[in-house]
């Protein structure tokens, strides 16, 4: 099977790691994304030039999970990233082995992101008084 490679849609898309979360911003649309841990690891793998199959193989080893189901998860997640124009097709050139080869004790979670698209609302949202316990951009439930 032909390997598929991707790259981050820079400079319109930027990402900033924050502890176990990755914040991704599409500067053209103003959309803000918060990636979960698996999605963050996958994002790093794509930045390093891994194909879907290479990334899934590493991730399956990392979590001790089934490679075929990880490939299926990654394939559909990458489609979503493409739809959001956060990544684009690229040329593969793996630079590093981004994941530790040691097995993780935590369970594998499907890659996912939360999306916030109302730019004006996000800019005006008071980050002290109008947010939930987890902080901006999570709005307090009224």
């Amino acid at each position, binding site marked *: 099977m032909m390997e598929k490679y991707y790259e981050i849609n820079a400079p319109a898309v930027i990402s900033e790691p924050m502890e176990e979360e990755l*914040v991704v*911003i599409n500067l053209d649309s103003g959309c803000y994304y918060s990636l979960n841990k698996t999605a963050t690891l996958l994002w790093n793998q794509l930045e390093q030039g891994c194909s879907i199959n290479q990334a899934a193989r590493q991730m399956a080893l990392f979590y001790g999970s089934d490679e075929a189901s990880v490939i299926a998860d990654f394939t559909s997640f990458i489609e979503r990233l493409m739809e959001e124009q956060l990544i684009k097709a690229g040329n593969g050139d793996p630079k590093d082995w981004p994941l530790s080869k040691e097995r993780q004790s935590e369970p594998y979670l499907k890659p996912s992101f939360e999306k916030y698209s109302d*730019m004006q609302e996000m*800019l005006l949202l008071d980050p002290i008084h109008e*947010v939930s316990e987890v*902080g*901006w*951009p*999570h709005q307090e439930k009224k």
Partner: protein
Amino acid sequence: MVKPDELLLLYAILEKNDSMALAYYAKWTQAVDFDNIEGGSFRLLPLLYKRVARTGKSVPHLNRLKGIYRQSLYRNSLLFHKAFKMLAELEKMGVPVILLKGTALIAAYYEDIGARMMNDVDFLVREEDVERTLRFLKEQGWQDRYGLLLNKAAKYIHSLDLKNPDGYELDVHWYAFYQCCWDGADLSLWDRAETAAFKGVSVRLLSPTHQIMHNCAHGIRWNPLSSIRWIVDVLIILEKRAASIDWELLISEAAERKLTVTMLHALSFLNSKFNAGIPEEVLSRLATMRKDPQELRLFAILTSPRRFGDISYKWFIHSDSMGSAPFWEKAVLFPDFLKNFWELQSLHQLPLYVLKRIKQKLTQRRYA
């Protein structure tokens, strides 16, 4: 100059030792009401988050601080993106720009786009490029906040705030220092400017020596929002580029620019409260230099609370430009000065325009 709770906040941010930083943080949270943090302190919360998060400890309000950092990251990223496109166009037109204030500090010193809150992007253009810069920005939809947009560089002001329809703000400077608006005032800034790469873009910045002077001169001004940010800004420049500071240049330019009082005041404060490591010889030389009476008067005006906006500053400029003319003559001509300053067509427009500015300032203050 700095309130006790602000000092605790600054120590929490700047302290190198983790447990000491957390101790200052705990004292600060006891000293303030987290739901009603003063605007000047609020602007430092992204930096506070970074410092506290680095300790790896869970502390009260951590998630809210993290959210404030996220919002700052988001807001600044959009602002940089918008502004850098514009600045790249200016460079293509042959208009070089130097980044100033927060934008420059983020690019060269904080190296973290969310660490320092910004309201606008400040940049300097050469005096001869002001007209075409403003013309270009006007074509791109950037408007003067007061709806006037100057067509020519005003003689007495150093910068102009512009806003676009999406609410982004630019601050175009043609003189870097508001105290130094004369022909050729900034030639040495351009001569010594540095370049740096930030997020894949090459940017031009003031030399570290000029950066310190600029941040001290702006920071020490009285501001309705406590302007304690300049303290962290100058300390980070000193920390990262200590070996590159040309103290001789700072002393000589402080004299030329009539900024000896300002520099002495700011640098002495940093040494006494933060052990900033500024050579004592620099302070004693600044202290013994002759102080120009005009500089002392301007320093007093700029560091005192301004109940009537910048009107005392404008009076100072007007009065200074009329030299030894009698007071009554200066007073009679002051409305005319304001009319020209704000580029109004006639004196009749003045009262309404002043009211409009006051209303705008009050609104800004409420939401700042």
